[in-house]
């Protein structure tokens, strides 16, 4: 009787799976094995799904499937390669002439032209559209007119963008920025079809793009079904029939569903499962570097932390942290001890250098104690590391870092964690310059350039310079590097600037974060790109 019950359930599950697969095949193919559909875990995007409005990974997954921009970052090497760009030319690193390749269309048949880009960028930059990523267009001339810091915008389009032909347009920047074309792989720079502007709510309900997938159906908050677009003109066609993104309430339940065989791909293995993941999945678990670095930032607006001996003090704290042990025991090697202020995904050519931090990042309790004493001791006799406790497992590592510091200094009260309930509150206290000691800082790159790991974080008054660190020499070197037309020399100059960050220990690098994913035996060729997004179009279904 019980056996019969169980059989009934199985039949039920199989029937459901079959109907799903049948739906998946779509009109073009009958849902055979080769054009199978991958089911993948998803979370509800925090913002409306517009290219210039998506700044988190869940929305990023969709954009990566339905859009292709002028450039695309190689999923393996992170190198920016031409996608829709036929050529991007400049003689002075300020004026750029862009030619769009012929033959590209949106999935509704509309050709991708120069205007598709210019209109999209103007939309993204305009203040009245409330786009979270508007600052990406900040280097383009005329940005201040469409997006003033205060008051009403004076223009609706940026003066630096001019359409010069059906497939050509020019861009004028406000400053020299030789590697600017390499930023164009970011989703915010995607082209947009007319339908986006003419029927905006219709577009949001079922986005139309020019990528290898098209949106088949979208039930907000629960599921998005993407299907391979047979008319896709690009070289990176989808190797599967489509992808079903399913919203899970919790990454634990997604993981459970994967182990039960109901889901093909989980791109965020919960911390609690890291111990079992090898046993559960074997080699179907991947753990690869992503462009994310975690650091401890300091409040330089607080006089106690902005002292002449401060650099020694901060270096001392850095050397009191046993990074190896913490990444091993707490993160189960899903993070790698940091050796510089960038990320391994840049590669040596891109500016990553695992010797740059050197001694300053090595654990040495005796030296740490000495340096801290030389630097004037901990302000107020102890330090509090501030973090938000609602996301990630920040409490665990902050406690471990504090333990490490306390042990190194032989003082149980030297360091303690200071938890803030929500991420939003944490951020708002940081923006109001209310930090009284070091605080958790994480940086996920926007584009794989060394510039992106340094300028937004340490340049005077930069957008993410939360500690308000300021150093003239650093600023000068960054300006020089941006003006450098030879990429190799630019990288070199950025590394010089990075050495200033090291000597001053502007922020303590902790570890590089990896992306992790697990998948079912049904699929193969699963990889994560440097943004820790699964490379969906290369997944094969057996």
């Amino acid at each position: 009787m019980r056996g019969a019950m169980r059989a009934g359930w199985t039949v039920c599950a199989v029937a459901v799976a079959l109907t799903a697969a049948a739906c998946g095949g779509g009109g073009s193919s009958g849902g055979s094995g080769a054009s199978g559909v991958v089911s993948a875990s998803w979370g509800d995007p925090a913002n409306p799904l517009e290219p210039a409005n998506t700044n988190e990974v869940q929305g990023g997954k969709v954009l990566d499937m339905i859009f292709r921009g002028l450039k695309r970052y190689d999923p393996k090497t992170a190198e920016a390669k031409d996608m829709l760009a036929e050529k991007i030319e400049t003689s002075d690193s300020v004026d750029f002439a862009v030619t769009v390749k012929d033959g590209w269309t949106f999935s509704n048949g509309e050709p991708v032209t120069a205007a598709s880009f210019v209109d999209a960028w103007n939309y993204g930059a305009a203040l009245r559209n409330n786009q979270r990523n508007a600052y990406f267009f900040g280097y383009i001339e005329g940005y201040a007119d469409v997006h003033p810091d205060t008051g009403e915008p004076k223009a609706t389009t940026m003066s630096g963008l001019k359409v010069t032909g059906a497939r050509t347009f020019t861009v004028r920047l406000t400053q020299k920025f030789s590697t600017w074309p390499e930023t164009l792989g970011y989703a915010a720079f995607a082209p947009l079809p007319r339908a986006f502007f003419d029927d905006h709510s219709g577009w949001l309900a079922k986005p139309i793009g020019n990528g290898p997938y098209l949106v088949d159906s979208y039930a907000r908050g629960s599921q998005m079904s993407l299907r391979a677009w047979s008319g896709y003109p690009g070289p990176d066609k989808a190797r599967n029939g489509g992808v079903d993104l399913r919203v899970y309430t919790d990454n634990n339940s997604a993981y459970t569903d994967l182990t039960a065989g109901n889901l093909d791909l989980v791109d965020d293995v919960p911390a609690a499962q890291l111990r079992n993941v090898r046993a559960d999945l074997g080699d179907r678990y991947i753990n690869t570097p992503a462009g994310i670095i975690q650091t401890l930032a300091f409040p330089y607006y607080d006089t106690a932390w902005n002292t002449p001996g401060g650099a020694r003090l901060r270096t001392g704290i850095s050397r009191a942290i046993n990074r190896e042990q913490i990444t091993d025991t707490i993160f189960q090697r899903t993070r790698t001890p940091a050796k510089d202020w960038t990320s391994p995904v840049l590669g040596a050519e891109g500016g990553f250098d695992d010797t740059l931090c050197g001694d300053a990042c090595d654990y040495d309790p005796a030296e740490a104690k000495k340096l801290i004493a030389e630097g004037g001791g901990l302000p107020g006799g102890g330090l509090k590391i501030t973090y938000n406790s609602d996301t990630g497992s920040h409490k665990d590592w902050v406690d471990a870092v504090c333990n490490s510091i306390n042990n190194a200094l032989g003082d149980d009260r030297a360091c303690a964690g200071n938890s803030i309930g929500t991420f939003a509150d944490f951020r708002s206290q940081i923006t109001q310059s209310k930090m009284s000691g070091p605080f958790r800082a994480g940086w996920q790159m926007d584009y794989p350039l060394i510039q992106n790991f340094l300028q937004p974080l340490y340049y005077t008054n930069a957008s993410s310079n939360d500690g308000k660190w300021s150093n003239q020499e650093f600023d000068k070197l960054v300006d020089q590097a941006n003006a450098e037309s030879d990429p190799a020399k630019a990288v070199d100059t950025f590394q010089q600037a990075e050495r200033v960050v090291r000597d001053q220990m502007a922020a303590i690098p902790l570890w590089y974060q990896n992306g992790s994913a697990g998948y079912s035996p049904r699929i193969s060729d699963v990889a994560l790109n440097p943004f820790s997004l699964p490379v969906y179009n290369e997944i094969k279904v057996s």
Partner: protein
Amino acid sequence: MGRYVIRRLLQMIPVFFGATLLIFLMVNVMGDPIQGLCGQRQCDPATAARLRQEFGLDKPVWQQYLTYMGNVFTGDFGTAFNGQPVTELMASAFPVTIRLTLVAIFFEIVIGITFGVITGLRRGRPVDTSVLLLTLIVISVPTFVTGLLLQLLLGVEWGVIKPAVSPEAPLDELIVPGLVLASVSLAYVTRLTRTSIAENARSDYVRTAKAKGLPCHRVITRHLLRNSLIPVVTFIGTDIGALMGGAIVTERIFNIHGVGYQLYQGIVRQSTQTVVGFVTVLVLVFLVANLLVDLLYAVLDPRIRYA
């Protein structure tokens, strides 16, 4: 009876306003939600100001509350941060949670009361002792343990159920989550019914009914049970609200896209509109359920009259 209902309905008005005001203030105290929208970086000030204006966050709290309440009465519950109207979120979440609650209540009534009657009539016998012990275990084990355990055993190890409920959440997929959600209340219902039955079994009217020569099942269902159910009905009535709002843990474990999940997401993203909207509806559900319970008393016990 009519006047009683009207009086109770009028009493709901201040409770409703008080509750919504409290929630509104609490969500506001959590800080500036806009800062959380831009990820690990500072929102550019111009966009942040625009967003604040759009969501009405630049006005003083009392004004925000008044505008919000004004909108609520025209059926507009505002917009969540992802641009989705809160009413749309409600339309997708409430049917799911109501289904889950119904499944849970069904288990409470059927299993809870049956066990209660059996143990109440067999006090001190082995069946009584074992059920008591069982309920004690259920009460003392937290819901998330029962939930995760059943999910692992039934879903992953034995493959009897799907460990994650699909977005449409049909009734058959909600059986196990409903059982988990009901488990603790179920144990309480069993214990309440048992005590009440045991007490009333010795009362005069039961003796009279027996003396009249009525068949045993009639004595139990018509006389004994009807009078013994009053505390149980009170409990189940208040439990409806608790089950609907308190399903956060169960809904997260079993991937149910219901009220608990939306509330959780609203709190994490500090979306005032979502949280206040959902809790307002939950407050209403709670109030109505309580009123229904009070009216049910009169049906169950003819001695109770409302004037």
